[in-house]
């Protein structure tokens, strides 16, 4: 019989895998991996904010991921500094600020490792509410914009000419991404969250012929990785977040191998 904390971690991880899979597909299709990186590294500031104001940790992180999304929207208006440089700048500035803020707030040496790489022991019943209620909202929102978001991801000008409200759809997507990143921080940590989004999707791509097929395969890979990663963590006493990510990397390697050997596609 597994410990209750392990059961909570497993439920949380499986729920997250389902929500993260379709979202991660869009992150891959829209080439937003570094965008996701920037907002998830900013999550540490949110952790400090939550500690300082005695907020729910996920709520504190959500405030910050939304704020950074807004900041990136504003900074995207200028064209003097390329956007990818900007993302790198924000990601690392936010990480630095987060580490400092967390060390100031906690008063003692904070468990930085837990926040950076995830901590399954920290998953509470409240977190299960976050993933199952917040996750359902995120999934429902994503499904409601699925068609227009897919259309503009395939060809934005064509979608816009056909009457898709591209700015509004992209805004909804960015808010959903901020929400899921904020929830995911708990289990895989600020540094590995984006891996949990893009790795299942990337591993699913060579096996998929439809967008929805890719999301379903990604969800299956994500769930498999959560189960295998937690098992590895318990049996080998390895950190849980990195274990999950390592399993995902292995799945990706297996999935991409035939394409590499064929050269192309």
């Amino acid at each position, binding site marked *: 019989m597994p410990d209750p904390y392990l059961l909570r971690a497993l439920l949380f991880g499986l729920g997250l895998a389902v929500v993260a899979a379709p979202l991660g597909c869009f992150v891959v299709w829209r080439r937003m991996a570094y965008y996701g990186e920037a907002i998830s590294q900013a999550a540490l500031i949110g952790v400090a904010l939550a500690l300082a104001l005695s907020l729910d940790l996920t709520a504190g992180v959500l405030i910050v991921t939304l704020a950074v999304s807004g900041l990136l929207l504003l900074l995207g208006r200028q064209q003097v500094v390329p956007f990818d440089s900007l993302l790198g700048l924000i990601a690392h500035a936010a990480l630095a600020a987060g580490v400092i803020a967390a060390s100031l707030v906690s008063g003692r040496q904070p468990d930085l490792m837990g926040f950076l790489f995830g901590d399954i022991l920290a998953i509470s019943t409240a977190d299960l509410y976050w993933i199952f209620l917040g996750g359902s909202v995120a999934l429902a929102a994503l499904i409601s914009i699925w068609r227009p978001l897919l259309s503009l991801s395939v060809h934005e000008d064509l979608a816009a000419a*056909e009457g898709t409200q591209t700015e509004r759809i992209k805004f909804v997507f960015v808010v959903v991404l901020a929400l899921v990143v904020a929830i995911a921080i708990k289990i895989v940590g600020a540094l590995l969250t984006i891996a949990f989004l893009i790795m299942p999707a990337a591993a699913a791509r060579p096996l998929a012929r439809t967008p929805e097929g890719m999301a379903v395969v990604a969800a299956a890979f994500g769930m498999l990785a959560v189960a295998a990663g937690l098992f590895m963590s318990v049996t080998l006493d390895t950190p849980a977040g990195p274990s999950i990510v390592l399993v995902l990397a292995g799945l990706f390697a297996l999935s991409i191998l035939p394409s590499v050997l064929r050269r192309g596609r």
Partner: protein
Amino acid sequence: MQGREGLGLPLQPGAAGPLARDSIGDAHGGHAAPREQKVEARSPVVHDPAALISARGLALARSGRPILTGIDIDISPGEIVTLIGPNGAGKTMLVRSLLGLEPIDGGSVRRRDGLVIGYAPQRFEVDRAIPLTVARFVALGRPADRAEVERVLADVGAGKLLRRQLSELSGGELQRVVLARALARRPSLLVLDEPSRGVDYAGEAELYTLIGRLRTDRGFGVLLVSHDLHIVMAQSDRVICLNRHVCCSGVPQQVAQHPEYARLFGPQAARALAVYHHQHDHRHDLAGAPRPAATPGGPAGESRS
């Protein structure tokens, strides 16, 4: 016909006048006007109320350089309007600003309420990161059942591509599939930016015949961008010759003989066109394969008003 460039009117010089071809950056619109679209800037601006899409005094500048000035254009239901002009004339930019894809710097654009646009952009880069079948791509423009997707793909000679991945298509196949998506939307206005890229010369003629036939069947308006007046002659109701402003416009035969056209494309082009008659004892489908001759669909260049 209420449009100032309406069919049947004698050939008219463009807004800037034939002798003012190089005086780009005049007082028309200019930078004083705020970036606006679908905004009637001043009360005297009158759009053709019957037009599907209409622009008055449209001006566009990028990095301080004027790209389009003083463009007046109307496209009416059931009308095929072809935009021709040399490279760099601003054809694609004009199309994009009419579609609302580019912010304009002066003048106004009005799209009729409830306008359904089917659009085939000039360049279509397939993103291989997204797994997508041809059928799914076509249905992305408007939810359509399988039978309708098949029919519209068959219309453009791409029926066999239904289950293929978009990323596996050749350039010519992709052009046809993009056209099929535009048609699947059941458009009231079809906007095709150089639809013949990747299609050979005979396929090009077939493509324009198809567009002419579908126009007759379904009654949509068509805005076509072409680099070559030659090939679009038979199907166009009206040709607008563009070089950052409207140089001249009218029925194709008139434009071909206009001095502005000769200046832009060289006298040989105009002479060649004046005597051009396409003699074909067979047809080609869009893939270029010859077929037995058949009567062309509908009287070409039929007068519409």
